[in-house]
């Protein structure tokens, strides 16, 4: 059934369809409508879940950790400062191998106070052990939540579905909402092998000596890496049931391109329009949308970029003293390649500053200048 809904409500519908059992949340703009809608769904009996109205995001994640450890499917949603406050418990969820799913609406961090789109909040959590998926439209948001649960429960790791504040969270688009029967076929109930069970008592998260700790971390790393094998099959099953196909990275017109533009989230949507226009005029510009950030799809990117001379990375985030985080990760992925492309990092759209088609064209032109690679980090649209 197609409905015109905002990005936030796409999450709510997906969480309901996933038959999530425990939701714990604290309000923060621009996430609030997700949990408002979920609280309505619970109140009206459309969703049989326990909704815990906690007193902070830190507690929201702690509740999810407790619920997931006790064997229930758990969900929360947050943004910006809320995610920053949650940081400690993100480690707890991943370390305890709990497949919690969270919607994370990309919003800038204060000060100064800013509620608009910026990826620095989610990317600052890249080392917590959470899988990260970046969405370009509302349909993808709904689908990604379902896929995230399926994947998280397969590899025993938590997953966050990430999308831009307002550009998606508050924007209405037509979304195909699948039937509960379809979703049940794709996403079976959560039945963990190990959980808090009085009939089979075990201790979880005990004091762990140097004799064991490193192996546990290694297992988390392996589980994260296993996503490269597991996810394509899940995407394929998803497409078989729902008719929509997804890939870890989406290359467009990259074969033989004189320049490839790499981006994520809604920037990719705008960029596609620009690239289509330029290519129609005879240019050869490729576009690479990166959907999965953790685990980082290094092999897939290397394959696509083999033979490409230049890559311009458009980052709506900044790691101070280094540059854009996607650019940084791409450089790391390519550094051992003998024939590697030049990677030019562009910082744009921080704190919700518009990334217009004109600014994307500007990035392409600047990246193609012969001296472009001399600049490690380029800023787009910066006021002098």
């Amino acid at each position: 059934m197609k409905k015109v809904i905002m990005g936030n409500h796409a999450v709510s519908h997906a969480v309901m369809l996933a038959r999530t059992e425990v939701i714990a949340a604290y309000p923060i703009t621009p996430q609030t409508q997700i949990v408002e809608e979920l609280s309505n769904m619970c109140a009206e009996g459309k969703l049989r879940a326990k909704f815990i109205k906690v007193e902070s995001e830190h507690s929201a994640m702690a509740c999810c950790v407790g619920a997931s450890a006790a064997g229930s499917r758990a969900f929360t949603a947050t943004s910006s400062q809320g995610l920053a406050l949650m940081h400690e418990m993100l480690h707890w969820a991943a370390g305890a191998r709990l497949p919690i799913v969270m919607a994370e609406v990309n919003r800038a961090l204060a000060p100064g106070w800013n509620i608009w789109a910026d990826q620095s909040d989610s990317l600052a959590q890249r080392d917590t052990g959470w899988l990260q998926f970046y969405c370009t439209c509302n349909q993808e948001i709904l689908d990604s939540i379902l896929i995230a649960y399926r994947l998280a429960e397969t590899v025993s790791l938590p997953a966050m579905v990430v999308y831009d504040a307002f550009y998606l969270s508050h924007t209405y688009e037509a979304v195909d909402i699948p039937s509960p029967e379809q979703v049940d076929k794709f996403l079976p109930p959560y039945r963990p092998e190990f959980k808090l069970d009085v009939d089979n008592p075990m201790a979880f998260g005990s004091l762990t000596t140097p004799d064991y700790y490193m192996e546990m971390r290694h297992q988390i790393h392996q589980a994260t890496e296993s996503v490269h094998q597991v996810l394509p099959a899940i995407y394929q099953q998803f497409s078989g049931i729902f008719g929509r196909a997804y890939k870890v990275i989406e290359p467009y017109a990259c074969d033989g391109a004189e320049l490839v533009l790499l981006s994520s989230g809604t920037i990719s949507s705008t960029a596609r329009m620009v690239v289509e226009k330029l290519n129609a005029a005879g240019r050869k510009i490729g576009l690479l949308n990166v959907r999965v950030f953790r685990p980082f799809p290094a092999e897939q990117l290397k394959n696509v970029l083999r033979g490409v001379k230049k890559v311009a990375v458009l980052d709506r985030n900044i790691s101070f003293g280094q540059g854009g985080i996607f650019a940084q990760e791409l450089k790391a992925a390519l550094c051992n390649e003998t024939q590697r492309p030049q990677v030019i990092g562009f910082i744009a759209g921080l704190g919700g500053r518009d990334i217009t088609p004109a600014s994307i064209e500007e990035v392409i032109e600047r990246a193609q200048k012969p001296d472009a690679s001399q600049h490690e980090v380029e800023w787009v649209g910066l006021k002098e």
Partner: protein
Amino acid sequence: MGGTERMNHEKTHENELVCSGHYACQGCGAVIAMRHALAALGPRTIVVLPACCWSVIAGPYPYSALRVPVFHTAFETGGSTASGVRAALEMQGKSDINVLAWAGDGGTFDIGLQSLSGAVERNEDIIYTCYDNEAYMNTGIQQSSATPARAWTTTSPEAHPKDTQKKNIVQILAGHKIPYVATTSIGFPDDLIAKFEKAKSIRGTKFLHVLAPCPSGWKYSSQLSVRLARLATHCKVFPIYEVFDGETYVINVEPEGRPVKEYLSLQGRFSHLTPRQIDEIQARVDYDWEHLLHKAMLEKFEFE
């Protein structure tokens, strides 16, 4: 509540859910508290352990000194993690399982107070226990807001001991108007066991504040733990009482009314006190006791 009965409890429980081989110090009050609590609650109990001495006492991976499921969680999340466990059990239709959040004074009075208050305000169906050893013992005896005025700790050295009173956690919890708040102590095992049994039978949040003396932190010989816990009550330093629905106060143990000096003088952490400071502590203890009597609507103590 005769002495013989108490001694029997001390020796053995039908349900001994704390195993030997745990990592506690000799004479640790927190282990005695857990033994009695779990004996009362039984094996259908899930323990949520935020960072505290018990994170270590429970034993390292892959061992556990408890015969019930345990989830170790972050320092400030006793209330919230336990809420999540309860929610999951509710969704699974399991209503006969106790969810026991078991935290020290640091995890309760200080860093955990927000998530505790949140859980308590929601009246989550959990038993939250604070075993109180009056400092951050797990990290090496640093001052907490449960540390009594004038006590030595490694962050309140003798030259600059704690200059504020111990936070009244029971009053804070009673202020949330939950069904049951009570103090108890390893010095009175019958009382402790009876209170955990009562807590088991009440729906909503139960908060139990258990005095658990610490030989290394309080600087006394380990055989004195139970004696000190009893003295704390008999000197009115740690009165044993209940608060129902945040309104009704009931005092459960009649103190013998011994001078506070008797309690203080057995502990190295108070050895620097001057006679005048001991008098000041005595005055504060007397004042607090009168205050409690008023709350219990007693002119003077009448033990039933």
